[in-house]
């Protein structure tokens, strides 16, 4: 069963793909019959079925009941794998950013603009997370930047072990900047540490100023808030000061940068933040 959504088929399962190296991933199974002949075949539909049933045997005469004090965090596995990623990033001096937002706030556009303007000075690597399609990876790949697309199927967020698998495909170099574009979702990704150096939440001016308190978890766990689409300010009814006040109520340490990925306004401030934080020693 898929670790995120519970589905069992390849269509909806988690897929990690590179647009330049589209290899299909096949499961090879072998069966040995009574005569000792081996049959090998592949399943391309990824259906994993249990051939046996689980039955509970109730022996009523001797019930040995035992209480185990577990005291274990449920997200322990994700946190462990995130720590592994973090160790890898630190050893290779990689600055990893986890970009989170609702769908349509401009994560990919900001990324495109950033890569276009800075790719000659900073070595970038990108992990794209979406439920379906290679569209975003194709947009990034157009800049000749190494990119891997994770399709989560029905899953609503990226998890740290998937990032680790994607990293293996990326063949990331030392001193690079890794941009992880999470699945467009302002709720679920907040709980899942990927091992990133900084988490950046993106909100656009079309979204309404009370979003930070409607979806507080994401703002609580982020380091920087990028407010995108400021070129639309004359046309939308949003009070940016109010938005920032709400966000600061949730997370008093949050920093803000206002930009427009379309016109390029404010991008320099963002680039300065990126370069400054990249060079800061890790604690």
């Amino acid at each position, binding site marked *: *069963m898929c*670790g*995120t*959504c*519970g589905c069992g088929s390849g269509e909806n399962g988690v897929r990690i793909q590179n647009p330049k190296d589209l290899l299909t991933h096949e499961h090879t199974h072998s069966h040995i019959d009574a005569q000792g002949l081996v049959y090998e075949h592949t399943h391309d539909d990824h259906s994993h079925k*249990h051939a046996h049933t*689980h039955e*509970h*045997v109730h022996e009523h005469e001797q*019930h*040995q*009941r*035992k*209480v*185990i*004090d*577990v*005291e*274990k*965090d*449920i*997200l*322990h*596995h*994700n946190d462990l794998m995130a720590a592994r990623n973090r160790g890898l990033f630190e050893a290779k001096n990689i600055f990893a950013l986890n970009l989170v937002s609702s769908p349509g706030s401009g994560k990919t556009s900001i990324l495109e603009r950033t890569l276009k303007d800075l790719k000659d000075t900073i070595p970038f690597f990108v992990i794209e997370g979406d439920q379906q399609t290679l569209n975003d990876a194709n947009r990034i790949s157009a800049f000749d930047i190494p990119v891997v697309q994770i399709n989560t199927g029905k*899953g*609503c*967020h990226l*998890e740290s072990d998937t990032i680790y698998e994607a990293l293996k495909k990326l063949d990331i170099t030392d001193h690079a900047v890794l941009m992880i574009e999470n699945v467009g979702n302002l*709720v*679920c990704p*907040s*709980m*899942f540490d990927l091992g990133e150096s900084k988490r950046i939440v993106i909100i656009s001016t079309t979204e309404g100023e009370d979003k*930070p*308190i409607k979806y*507080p*978890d994401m703002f*609580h766990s982020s380091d920087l808030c990028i407010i995108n689409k400021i070129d639309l300010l004359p046309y939308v009814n949003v009070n940016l000061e109010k938005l920032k006040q*709400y966000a*600061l*109520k*949730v997370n*008093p340490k949050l920093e803000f940068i206002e930009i427009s990925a379309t016109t390029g306004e404010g991008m320099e401030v963002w680039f300065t933040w990126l370069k400054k934080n990249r060079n800061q020693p890790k604690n």
Partner: protein
Amino acid sequence: MHELSVALGIVKIAEEETAKAQAKYVELIELEIGALAGIDFESLHFVWPAAVKDSVLENAIKKINLLEGIAKCVDCDTIFTINHIYDSCPKCKSNFKGIIQGKELRVKALEVV
């Protein structure tokens, strides 16, 4: 629906602990979930049967201890209950606070047979 990931995390822990104790299945599982942990209980109950199917938890009773949110103000040291992450200190209105309780997401105990 990250609750399914959470439920599958619970199943993973229960499977490991049951195997360690050389038990067959779980009769009761006790969870501790904080009010600020970001878990929607309705969603958790909804995904539960699918997550525990064919596992040691399939017939287990699930007991959830809900822990309320408690924070300590960084500026005036007041300890207060919080219902939302954005609640400010009732005494000095500061937004700077440390969350002492309410982010828990834990398997506390298992009763295995």
